[in-house]
């Protein structure tokens, strides 16, 4: 998928697999050490993530690619604190996620990360403004401050003029931009995007990927992007991690 000039990628960096050596721990956004996520399905054990070790530096835009069922979304869920590893050590922005309880994980999700989903996950009865404001509501941000933050986030995704629209009144691309604004509004240190272009046409996909890249560039925001579209990811990501059968087969080291 071609990326328009001006937002074109810095080129993909495919690195060696295996355990990584970290030169500067203070700039490490994500550090995992042999993390596993296994599921019991009757007599079988599904090894969705099976011993992944990696480092992601602050300000990096890292793409995770792999076939369907390879474990990339499970890895993203672990990093996002939506799921907990069966085994291993996982540290994000200095927080040991494998040691947090349910409440600790919720507070982590509330304050540290922003997530963008494939299916946008906008509340249909709420306007774009209200959808974007939702994380701030959970953070008990005062209403006046909330308005200014939401407007800034919507401006960043060029949707300030559509803030009173319901999701059903917006195009798919606009809906995903609202979802990105929602992820950005609380000024997260890490943005996780799970197949953000999965429900979009190719032109809109380019637009959304370009937006993610711009955010990464302009704000030095660490972005982890999961996608099955390897070509598109390679064009914008600093580094591409390839996962197969729950294992990292490429890109583990920066």
């Amino acid at each position: 998928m071609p990326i328009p000039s001006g937002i074109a990628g810095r080129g993909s960096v495919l690195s060696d697999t295996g355990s990584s050596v970290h030169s500067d721990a203070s700039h490490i956004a994500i550090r995992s050490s042999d993390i596993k996520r296994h599921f019991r399905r009757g007599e079988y054990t599904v090894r969705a993530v099976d011993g992944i070790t990696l480092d992601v530096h602050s300000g990096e835009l890292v793409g995770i690619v792999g076939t369907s069922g390879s474990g990339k979304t499970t890895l993203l869920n672990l990093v996002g604190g939506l799921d907990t590893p069966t085994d291993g050590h996982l540290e994000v922005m200095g927080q040991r996620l494998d040691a947090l309880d349910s409440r600790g994980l919720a507070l982590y999700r509330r304050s540290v990360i922003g997530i963008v989903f494939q299916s946008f996950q906008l509340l249909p009865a709420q306007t774009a403004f209200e959808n974007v404001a939702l994380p701030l509501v959970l953070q008990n941000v005062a209403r006046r401050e909330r308005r200014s933050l939401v407007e800034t986030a919507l401006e960043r995704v060029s949707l300030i003029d559509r803030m009173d629209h319901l999701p059903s009144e917006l195009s798919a691309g606009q809906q995903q931009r609202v979802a990105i604004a929602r992820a950005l509004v609380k000024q997260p240190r890490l943005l996780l995007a799970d197949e953000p272009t999965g429900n979009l046409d190719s032109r809109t996909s380019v637009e959304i990927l370009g937006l993610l890249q711009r955010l990464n560039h302009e704000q030095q925001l660490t972005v982890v992007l999961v996608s099955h579209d390897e070509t598109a990811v390679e064009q914008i990501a600093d580094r591409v991690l390839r996962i197969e059968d729950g294992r990292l087969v490429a890109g583990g080291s920066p």
Partner: protein
Amino acid sequence: MILRDQFSYAFANLRKTRLRTFLTAAGVATGIGAMTSMVSIGSGTQRNVLRTLNEQYVLTSIMVRSVHNAERSGDSQPPLDTSAVRKLRALPGVRDAFPVIGLPGLLVARGERLFQNLEGMPAWLLDEQIERGRVELVAGRTYAADETTALVVSERAADRLLPDSIPAEVLLDESVTFVVAQVPDSAQGMEPPSEVLVAGAAQLGLGRFRPTMLSLTIVGIVKGAGTFGDFVGVSLLAPIETVEPLHSASFRDLGALLTGEVQGGGYQLVQVLTEDVMAVAQVQDNVEALGFRAQSILDEIAEVRRAFVIMNGLLAMIGGVSLFVAAMMIVNTLVMAVLERTSEIGLLKALGATDADVTRLFLTEAGVIGIAGGVGGLGLGYLVARVTNAIANIQFERVGEVRVDLVAFPSWLMLGGLAFALSVSLVAGWYPARRAARVDPVVALRHY
């Protein structure tokens, strides 16, 4: 999440399913309405019956005797004196307590000498008895507590003082003397008797005692006087404050006068009036705990009390069944909401909502339904109670009975109804709320 956001979120969600929310709230309203209307009619009936019973002093009276006086069994019992009366008056549920004092003596008026009993009666009690029609004020007025020279005489005593043709009213404002026989040392400060009276007392065999004279003015004439009506033969009434100081050195009755037995420091009998019939049992227990013997006709009215408890219980139960059904509707509504909104719950959790946040959101929705149902239910209950009252009164009139207000809608019923609606909805909402809180965000976002 701050409370205001919690409520706007809840309202927004309830608005999305307006019909379902309305029907659920209507269910709660029906339950609360049924319960409050039943309790309202029950309370109204109870109020009417109690009002009738409370007007009967016999039912709200506890007659207190000191065990010492009553049984003459040992000296360790507390004396039934002024201090004891103060204690009795201070007991919860007690309206008033006062010694029952009847002083035998001579009423000297218009040249007549009548042997009469002077009873001390609290001014408020005499007024209330007249108000309730138990005592008829034939002429004049009643007295105030501080009118120490005021005297109210019975129509019967007045008749004895006057020839048939003269109306009793002529006795009003007339000064009379009441002579009480007392032991000599106790009448200090009282006006000395005239020689004529001393001689008169001597004629009656009272010579060895000191007659004490009370100069009184007749202010009123009544029919049916006395705490328990006319049957005790009381013919003269004065404020208890007038009679009480004479009590200790006086004689209980004619027999005591002849044997020289004075009443002494304690009272023979103290009457305790409770605030209502329902308080009698507790007050009686408290009086007995103070060491006195207390008698009431509680046993006879215990059945009435039991009947009220059973009646209110049954009525509330009928309403309670409706409310139970309403609670099930709330559970159903919210469980459906959890299922329909699993994806939304997953999103909230992905954005950082804790389990407690999600629980609170659903409980708020349940609470809003409960409050809306509660307010509606109170209105409905009032309406039903009023309609029932109107229909009942039409029937009463048809059979020649007087109209009565069967409905009581006191503030405790309204507040209680609302609190109950809220409590029931929160209890009903607890399971769906916890179920929502347990939603796994990964599963919710993947499958819904």
